[in-house]
């Protein structure tokens, strides 16, 4: 089951579950910026690092929910993701 994201994930906590770069696995932080191909995360030590979206599985956490995210499905600019009509796609 998956949910199509219509906006961005700025402000949420993100954890890398799987990535082709093994040094990035299990890294977590708060998303401070999202671009077309990268997430910019800030960890607790206020260090900012970039993570490429493709070939990665991420876990988004908020106060009320937690779900997994495939990076390949998010390879788009956040401003191009919004539409006039609300789209919810469940797989």
């Amino acid at each position, binding site marked *: 089951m998956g949910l199509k994201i219509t906006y961005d994930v700025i402000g949420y906590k993100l954890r890398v579950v799987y990535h082709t770069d093994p040094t990035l696995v299990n890294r977590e932080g708060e998303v401070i910026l999202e671009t077309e191909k990268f997430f910019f995360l800030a960890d607790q030590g206020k260090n*900012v690092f970039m993570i490429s979206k493709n070939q990665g599985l991420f876990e988004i956490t908020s106060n009320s929910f937690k779900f997994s995210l495939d990076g390949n499905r998010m390879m788009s600019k956040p*401003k191009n993701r919004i539409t006039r009509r609300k789209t919810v796609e469940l797989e």
Partner: protein
Amino acid sequence: MRNELLNRAIFLINYARRLAESGYLDISREVVKLGLTYSSKGRVRLPLEVKRSFCRKCYVPLIIGKTETRRIRRGYIVRTCNLCGWKRKYPVRNLRGKIP
């Protein structure tokens, strides 16, 4: 849908302010631009206090002492962006309580 876009745009601009207070000025600019893109694409009007919380030229959140300077000159409040030099004047009488 428009309500959601408006709420998301306001959240992003307020979040950018927190980022600027932490020192991430360049990233906060991009977040402000994204919030403005949401409001223009969804054709929603931002509240006045939100529109006046960032520099119109360089999109950096205006924080007194850090990115903004305020002076009162001849009955006007003059706000100056410390980074790009953009200025805006507001008459002291007709503020409507809308300057953050």
